[in-house]
């Protein structure tokens, strides 16, 4: 199941990156003579719109591929940002412990309780709509789970005697973090990175769907779903194609991440109980 999901994600990624170069039409290019072509019509095929064109004559296949590419790259970048913040926060809170840990985790709890999507929306409205902001905004809120998980792991590892033995060996704080803590939490961190990516895909598409994310002429899966939903009565393919790609992408990423997490938890140091998930 996990391998299958990873293959699907990889295939989607390869297609999204390379296939647009092979297509006759650019994603923003308007074909004045081929507006609103149906998905399997002879005319569409002849003009090189293999999946038809949208209501202002842009190639649907090219738009879906480029939208996927943008959605995925934003997701990866934001998830990496989230991982870095989460690891740093979790390691510091878990390592120092005590009052500092209390305060740091209370902040995470408080942020968890916030309707963060609304805050991202307010941020978007306030600072204008740019891709950079989209992913900073998303990355800044998606780190919470990572911070919790990493903190739990660090606390579990910290109480292990091999850390005390390292202290008795004269290892510095930095050496213990780099040589003992990080190698032992990396597996879990990567599993949660894989779980963050689909979350971010979801948030980015959500924002774009509301018209607050990526802006025209750039496109993303969320925008395409929004456009498709507006015309689904006449042209269901406009909704089904980008929606299908989005769902398959999110499901595959989630399955891969969950299986990886379960596999690591089964043999890992700390076994965060089910509530942490």
């Amino acid at each position, binding site marked *: *199941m996990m391998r299958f999901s990873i293959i699907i994600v990889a295939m989607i990624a390869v297609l999204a990156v390379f296939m647009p170069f092979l297509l006759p039409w650019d994603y923003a290019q308007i074909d004045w003579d081929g507006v609103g072509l149906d998905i399997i019509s002879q005319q569409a095929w002849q003009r090189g719109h293999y999946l038809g064109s949208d209501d202002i004559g842009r190639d649907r296949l090219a738009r879906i591929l480029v939208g996927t590419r943008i959605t995925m790259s934003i997701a990866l970048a934001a998830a990496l940002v989230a991982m870095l913040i989460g690891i740093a926060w979790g390691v510091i809170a878990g390592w120092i412990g005590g009052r500092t840990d209390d305060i740091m985790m209370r902040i995470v709890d408080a942020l968890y309780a*916030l309707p963060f999507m609304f805050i991202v929306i307010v941020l978007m409205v306030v600072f*204008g709509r740019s891709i950079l902001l989209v992913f900073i905004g998303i990355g800044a809120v998606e780190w919470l789970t990572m911070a919790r998980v990493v903190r739990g792991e660090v606390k579990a590892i910290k109480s292990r005697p091999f850390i005390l033995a390292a202290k008795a060996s004269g290892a510095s704080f930095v050496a213990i973090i780099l040589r003992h803590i990080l190698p032992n939490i990396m597996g879990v961190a990567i599993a949660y990175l894989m779980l963050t990516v689909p979350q971010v895909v979801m948030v980015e598409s959500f924002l774009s769907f509301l018209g607050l994310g990526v802006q025209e002429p750039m496109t993303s899966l969320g925008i395409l779903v929004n456009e498709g939903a507006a015309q689904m009565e006449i042209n269901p393919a406009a909704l089904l194609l980008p929606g299908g790609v989005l769902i398959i992408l999110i499901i595959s990423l989630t399955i891969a991440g969950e299986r990886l997490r379960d596999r690591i938890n089964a043999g890992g140091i700390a076994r965060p109980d089910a509530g942490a998930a």
Partner: protein
Amino acid sequence: MLRLILRRLWMAIPTLFAIIILSFLLMRFAPGGPFDGERPLSPETKAALESSYGLDKPIWEQILLYVGRILQGDFGPSLIYRDFTVNELIAQGLPISLLIGGLALLLACAIGISAGLIAASKAGQAIDEILMLLATILTALPTFVTGPLLVLIFAFSLGWFPVSGMDENISWVVLPVIALSLPIAGAIMKLVRAGLAVQLSQDHLRSARARGLSPVKRLFRHALRPALVPAASYLGPAAAGVLTGAVVIETIFGLPGLGRYFVQGALNRDYPLVLGVVTLYAGLIIAFNLLADLMYGWLDPRMRDS
């Protein structure tokens, strides 16, 4: 237990204030104001408008005024719906949002708990695998895709439910509630299944088995209650999920709920409206977290003393 709740309340208050002040400042310092429309207003008109809404006062005074008014339950006038106060808009939108949100949460709990129970009692069998795969798929379904898809299938193609809006026939709630509840149902399924798996492997279940209790008694009397703790702790995030999802769902189904007002307010820089809705949402989510705390004590008495 009382202490725990008092402590949570004590922590919730500053959180709520922080949200109010933060979002107020963000909106206030945003480039572009509510009166920067397409047609520039004359400086005098603009000044007069801003003064009538109190926007010319020093910022700290605005905050104090605002917080003071919120404490009295007054969110001020809306800037885009000029004839309405925010309170009136909330009074109009909240019942609709609460109706579909509440129903969605109930549906999600019903589906999630029963499917989780079935999966856990058939652990390792095919039905467990299938249900858990289904749970993963459900959590991965974005509401803004499932919403239109449900409309496409059940409203346009089959014609069972209205496409959008509300009518006298209550059937308009069905599709929005389903779309909203699916991802949450998936999450609850996973949490219940995992919680039960943990409980079923505990020593106290082995002792119950040693005493010859039947599997059904063991599951319901000994395992279920503590197994629901992770699901209860998901209540706060679930409420947040429902509220967030409602923004999209209300837009897709054309329902005049709070979520729609929020989006309209945000797109048009209607500070009082956006602040009012965010404050209300934050309050609701905090209330759900408190409810979760109360449930812990009932589900697992150990939590009362910790």
